């Protein structure tokens, strides 16, 4: 019962957030200079033609009207059509021109749904790597505050946070793929192609995770129930892994939820570097091409994913720690 009411309440709030975010993004993208029609029609197109296209597409209506139209589509699962991409999904160049002969444009939703699973696979693997590594480094650090494991964790996170992801991506691709031939790197033809980009993302993710984990671990180990646990006859490993880790995982989970939007920034670059056909590559191409409907669709979908991931995170957190109430 609790879960149900929690879900209803949070999903309603979530829907509201997604709505607001959509409105915000919609408005923002319309105040960006650079008339999208100009982009579509090409620099050489006469003004009259631009106006004509804009009118036909309804881009000269008030923003509210446009937004209403857009949202009514969104509700029916229609995120509109890409300005520049054809239905076959090719990335298209900047130098194209509008003409009446254009082939059918791609549906934004299709483009997203096609690439999203790839990115989820990448992000999932990256989180697994990051968590594994953070546990390996962060837990000993948290158990020995001020001593060498703690310092090690600290230096590792300092170094990792200073590594720009595209630098690391290139170095790793060069080293592990080109020089050693251990892992394939560019494009996607099998699961192995996910590993390298995931490592790069994991390196980007882990400093904050290590810090949070070791700090909350250290905090939990100061809790009375840990000391009392020993007197009650529980073994140290049981206290650490059965209780302390369980408690420390709540802030970690929350952090992961928040990190998700940061992850998208990383995914963008990493997918570009590795030519990994996911949402990030789609986004960066959309941005480079100023494909506004696509950008908008991606933003709305990712914000929805973010909101729902956070609801899931909160739900899991309440299951771990029943004191929490959201």
């Amino acid at each position, binding site marked *: *019962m*609790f879960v149900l*009411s*929690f879900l*209803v*309440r949070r999903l309603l709030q979530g829907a509201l957030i997604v709505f607001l975010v959509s409105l915000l993004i919609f408005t923002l993208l319309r105040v960006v200079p650079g008339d999208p029609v100009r982009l579509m029609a090409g620099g050489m197109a006469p003004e009259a033609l631009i106006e004509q296209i804009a009118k036909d597409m309804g881009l000269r209506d008030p923003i509210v009207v446009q937004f209403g139209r857009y949202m009514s589509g969104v509700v029916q699962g229609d995120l509109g059509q890409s300005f520049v991409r054809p239905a076959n999904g090719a990335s298209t160049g900047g130098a194209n021109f509008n003409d009446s002969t254009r082939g059918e444009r791609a549906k934004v939703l299709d483009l997203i749904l096609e690439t999203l699973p790839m990115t989820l696979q990448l992000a999932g693997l990256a989180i697994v790597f990051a968590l594994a590594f953070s546990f390996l480094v962060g837990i000993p650090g948290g158990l020995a505050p001020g001593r060498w494991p703690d310092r090690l964790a600290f230096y590792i996170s300092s170094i990792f946070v200073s590594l720009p992801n595209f630098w690391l991506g290139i170095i790793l691709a060069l080293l592990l793929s080109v020089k050693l031939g251990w892992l394939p790197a560019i494009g996607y033809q099998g699961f192995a192609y996910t590993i390298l980009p995931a490592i790069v993302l994991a390196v980007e993710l882990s400093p904050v995770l290590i810090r949070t984990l070791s700090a909350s671990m250290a905090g939990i180990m100061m*809790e*009375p*129930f840990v*000391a*009392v*646990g*020993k*007197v*009650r*006859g*529980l*073994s*140290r490993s*049981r206290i650490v892994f*059965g*209780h302390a880790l*369980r*408690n420390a995982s*709540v802030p970690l989970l929350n952090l992961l939820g928040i990190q998700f939007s940061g992850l998208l920034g990383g995914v963008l670059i990493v997918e570009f570097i590795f030519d990994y056909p996911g949402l990030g590559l789609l986004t960066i191409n959309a941005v480079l091409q100023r494909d506004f409907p696509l950008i908008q669709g991606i933003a709305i979908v990712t914000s929805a994913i973010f909101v729902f991931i956070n609801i899931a995170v909160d739900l899991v957190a309440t299951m*771990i*720690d*029943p*004191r929490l*109430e959201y």
Partner: protein
Amino acid sequence: MTQPAPLLAVRDLSIDLRTGSGKRRVLSDISFDLAPREIVGLIGASGSGKTILSRALVNWIEPPLEIASGQVEYKSSNILTVAPGPMRRLRREIAYVGGDPMGALDPTLPVGHQIVEKLRAVAPEIGAAEAGKRVVDLLDAVRIPSAKNRFHEYPSQFSGGMMQRALIVDALVSNPAFLVADNITQPLDVTVAAQVLRLLRELTERFDTAVFFVSSSLPVVSDVASRILVLEEGRIVEQQETKALVAHPKHPYTYELMSQIPKLWAEGAANVPASTSKDVVISVRDVCRSYTVRKRGTFAAYNTVRAVRNVTFDVLAGENFGVVGESGCGKSSMMRLLSRLELPDSGQVLCNGEDIAQLRGKDLLKFRRNFQLVLQDPFSSLPPRTAIGAILEEPLRTHGMRDKRELRHRALTVMDEVGLPSSLYEELPIGLSAGQRQRINVAQAMVLQPKVLIMDETLSSLDQTEQFKLLKLFDKLQAQYGLTYVFISHDLAMVRRVCNRVAVMYLGEIVEIAHNERLFFDPGHPYTRTLMSAVPTLEERRYRPEDYLLEGEPPSPIDLPPGCSFAGRCPNVMDRCLTQSPHLTDRGAHDMAACFLLDPATARSKDIAERVVA
């Protein structure tokens, strides 16, 4: 002590505390025996090393503490040197219950599961199902209602008293040879504490467990233990059979401890100011306050907690007014209403005839200045990481004083008044004793030179020695500044000592309001009598727990039963109590109580009541 074959023998135990600049001895040459099935009490002021000693008995000495010499012999081996592995097995026989029930278990796992986990950690041969059954049985035995369901509930869903019972189960579930109970009643309400103690006695008898019982309250220890050790600054200064110790303390320190125990009915128990004024300072008029709490697991359903219900009383200038009751009775809400941290839903709080809810701006600031609060917890009531001088200057700054020298002067003056050395001006409160901290709290309130001080459980966290000193300070300040005090407390003995008039609260209502003597010698409400039956004392009780202390805790203020709210725990309950609510009835001399026993219509019942009392 000549018992043969002691269960536990402590020999020449000394423990050091390693500090930045060297070592300091905190326990020296402790030696005593614990016989099987014996309950030995340990008493000492805070800082005397009680807790360290009790932890040493369960091999729980960690840096910066270290064993300097001596041993704790159990089954002819020194448990202080047992390796961690075997020690874990040994924990089956050596159990410990601490004074922090809410922090003792992992908040993220159900209580029952954790007890099972412990049992199986120390006794792996017990199967999961059997362990579970055993735990449920024991939970039942400690009178946790619907133990089967409670087994799956989380620590946060347990009240303090219930949690302490669960922890006793946790300690006894492996059927240990001896149990160290360190200050287990300290955080509990008097009635709950008395229940827990009663339970402890029963269970240890049933399980043949020896107990090492540590407390800072001699009455509590003497209630439980057959023999008492007195600890002063890390040394055992006296040990005697309980009766002998109470009757004839040998060591001057024991004597001093006993002299500081507040008295309830004995001669000179009360030491109240001669209140001459008839001016009403605070007038509480029919005040109600409820809170809405979202119902867990619902979408938009709310529970109403009726924290204060139709409370009316006056506080006269220069008098000491007491409000007593157990946790959850609405004392704290009352305090928040009096200090205008919150406004009542209905009714008024008048200060010098003005409704404080209407105060704004300058008037409000003036009211604040005259009306100060001294809070309960000496640790969380001081802003962390702030020097004492700055803490004391902050209220003055709030009231617009900017001159640095003047600020410093005022702070130092008030420090002197409350007995804090001026060298502490730049110091942090950390490292100060609870008593010193509470002095800072008092100083912080006094620095604004108020007319009324509300003491919210100000003394309850202090040991008797400190309480004694602070009460003296209060007397002095009152004499000097003509202060009016409102004491909000659960401690009857303290109220008995200082208050002119006392209001007893139960579940948001005032069930009795009376002058000091009348309340203690002729209480008008069964609840008052229950309280008195539970209060730890060395004196002969006027009301015996056997008659008045029933099992059970106050019902939740969310779902108040109809009728008298005390009906569920009342020894004199009648049919009428279950349907109707009694109102405060005048018993003469402005003393009132809310009980149908006082209703002339139930005179017959009153006879019954009196017979019971007799």
